């Protein structure tokens, strides 16, 4: 249970355990809480500073998210140390506010891709990979499957018709020019209960070589079902990492077998940390994630929490072992370096790839892997793919500068 007391490092948790996106929100939130409990139980906190947290239900609603943020930002000894909005929409809504409040927004694998540029977005962190990076990784994977060339191939993008779903379009288009494939767009209106027309178009008219999906919530399972209904081969159907959890494939039943998705966190319950959670928490009747233990999004919650804690730990190295302010944690993020040793030490072996952030690079160079559903489990079917960051950084920069101009922001100098 969340305890807010003096001398603790406070982290607000914006969650959605109800509403249309709850099936995904629940494992995510559980992962967070279990990790924090583990840190407090196993290590007695971060260098002795206990972590406290409070959940606030957003229902994946932007305005509720803003309200949650405002309510929780001043809590704890030093205020919120960082915020994980868990929605691209809420991320957008918080960027300006949090920057003004000097609280880091950690949008792990979602939100604004161009916020990677730390000089323009000092308080936003996108590690370990943005949507643009995800799109690039998926294209790289497809390219490998197609023996290196995408010339003349048809790729369809089925996407949630919202800020989130639109993120990859520009990247995929740019890559299309470069690699020579054609891209067809198929928006699906929220919530995405009906996709028959979309899939008739895809499966019976366009007949693309590959389908990429930026789906969310019930839309994912429906898409898989409808794809099966028109006989589209699952092996050629790849979702982004938010379209690749148990909640997305299980309702589709047998139809989902063979479906793939991108991933930047590990699957399963085999990491050392899983054993520790079982021993230190579940065995002692602590922790709340039993039902979702080891699910894709549960693990992602663990990793997200771990990165946040490490940023705090890094900051403590400079500011001392005491509760830190958001501004100090921001420094921790920018100097975060999670090497493989650190990852192993934390028991996260296999759950994430190393990242290293800096003043201007808030993404940290994480790698992406493709996984496939075999009807029971997710299995990796590719090596770790490194998104082509030189190209992406140019795109990030262009977009970030545009933003800076609109908002009259003078970019920070990160060279010093």
């Amino acid at each position, binding site marked *: 249970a969340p305890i807010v007391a003096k001398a603790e490092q406070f982290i607000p948790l914006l969650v959605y355990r109800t509403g249309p996106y*709850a099936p995904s929100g629940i494992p995510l939130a559980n992962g967070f809480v279990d990790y924090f409990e583990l840190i407090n139980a196993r290590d007695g906190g971060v260098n002795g500073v206990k972590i406290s947290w409070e959940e606030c239900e957003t229902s994946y609603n932007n305005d509720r998210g803003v309200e949650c943020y405002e309510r929780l930002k001043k809590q704890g000894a030093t205020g919120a140390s960082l915020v994980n909005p868990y929605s691209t929409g809420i991320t957008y809504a918080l960027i300006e506010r949090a920057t003004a409040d000097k609280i880091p927004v950690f949008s792990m694998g979602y939100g604004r891709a161009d916020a990677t540029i730390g000089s323009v977005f000092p308080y936003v962190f996108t590690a370990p990979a943005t949507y643009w990076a995800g799109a690039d990784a998926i294209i790289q994977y497809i390219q490998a499957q197609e023996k290196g060339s995408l010339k003349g191939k048809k790729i369809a993008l089925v996407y949630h018709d919202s800020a989130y779903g639109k993120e990859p379009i520009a990247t995929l288009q740019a890559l299309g020019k470069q690699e020579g494939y054609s891209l067809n767009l198929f928006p699906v209106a929220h*919530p995405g*209960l009906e996709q*028959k*027309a979309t899939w008739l178009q895809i499966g019976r008219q366009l007949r693309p070589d590959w389908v990429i999906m930026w789906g969310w919530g019930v839309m994912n*399972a429906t898409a898989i079902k409808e794809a*099966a*209904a028109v006989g589209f081969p699952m092996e050629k159907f790849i979702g982004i990492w938010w379209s690749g959890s148990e909640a997305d494939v299980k309702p589709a039943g047998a139809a989902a077998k063979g479906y793939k998705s991108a991933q930047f966190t590990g699957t399963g319950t085999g990491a050392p940390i899983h054993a520790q959670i079982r021993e230190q928490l579940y065995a002692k009747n602590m922790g709340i994630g039993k039902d979702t233990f080891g699910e894709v999004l549960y693990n992602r919650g663990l990793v997200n929490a771990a990165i946040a804690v490490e940023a705090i730990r890094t900051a403590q190295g400079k500011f001392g072992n005491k509760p830190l302010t958001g501004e100090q944690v921001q420094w921790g993020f920018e100097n975060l370096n999670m090497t493989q040793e650190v990852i192993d030490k934390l028991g996260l072996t296999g759950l994430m790839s190393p990242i290293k952030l800096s003043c201007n690079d808030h993404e940290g160079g994480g790698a992406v892997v493709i996984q496939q559903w075999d009807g029971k489990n997710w299995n990796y079917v590719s090596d770790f793919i490194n998104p082509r960051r030189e190209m992406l950084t140019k795109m990030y920069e262009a977009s970030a500068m545009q933003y800076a101009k609109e908002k009259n922001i003078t970019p920070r100098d990160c060279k010093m």
Partner: protein
Amino acid sequence: MFFSWPFFFEVLIGGLLSGVMYSLVALGFVLIFKASGVFNFAQGAMVLFAALTLVGFINMGVPVPLAIVIAIIVMILLAYAVERAVLRPLVNQPPIILFMATIGITFFIDGFGQTLWGSDVYALDIGIPNQPLFFGDILVNSFDLVAAVVAGVLVAVLAVFFQKTRIGRALRAVADDHQAAMSVGIPLRVIWVIVWSVAGLVALVAGIMWGSKLGVQFSLALIALKALPVLILGGFTSIPGAIIGGLIIGAGEKLAEVFIGPFLAGAIEDWFAYMLAMLVLLFRPQGLFGEKIIERV
């Protein structure tokens, strides 16, 4: 993109069949409206609640047929509760007030269902096949065919129910004027329990069909929004109207999405369905098959 007749027919058939799925939900609305003059906003929530209850029991290890029976009983209890707590105290209030009360019911059921069964997603598999079938060149989905048969049966049964003159007449009388219906001795409370129970059953059927398709979860309540255009197009008071409305809306929106959508950047089917329905209303303000709206002074 190119146009070809087989593809056109595929879309048409697919559209007609998904329209039938909407009809399943729309029927519940029609039932309550026709029988008590209440626009039951909670129909979508009832679909969710019925489906959640069903999977809930199935997941507890109850055999499917028994779980269905239990779900039916639960829906009847719900009808009873709604009558007792909402309709009875609000007798004879104008339709808009009752409509708002059903909004309250919606929220309550949404919250209550999630409290009981959680907000997670559950797969519901009662063995309806979901395979592409080919008739000649044309693809049809087996699941959709089953849905169409179910809806057809349901409409037939309900039509008979309303034809059974005494009850049917009483139901329509209640829809016109609660107070007058009471004054001639129609037991309003019983009638309401019956109607809401039947609507609950219809919701269960819709819940089973949609739940098998999408999994059972909160979003199921939102299919009510897909049923509304069907409802207005067919007319609030017509049971066959719900089916025909469903067919028209289903076919219309799918054809539009496929053949017009690409010119408008897509995802037009939602508003297209509503626009289509509105267009029909401009010519027939009571929907295609609805009862005439009486205006007299």
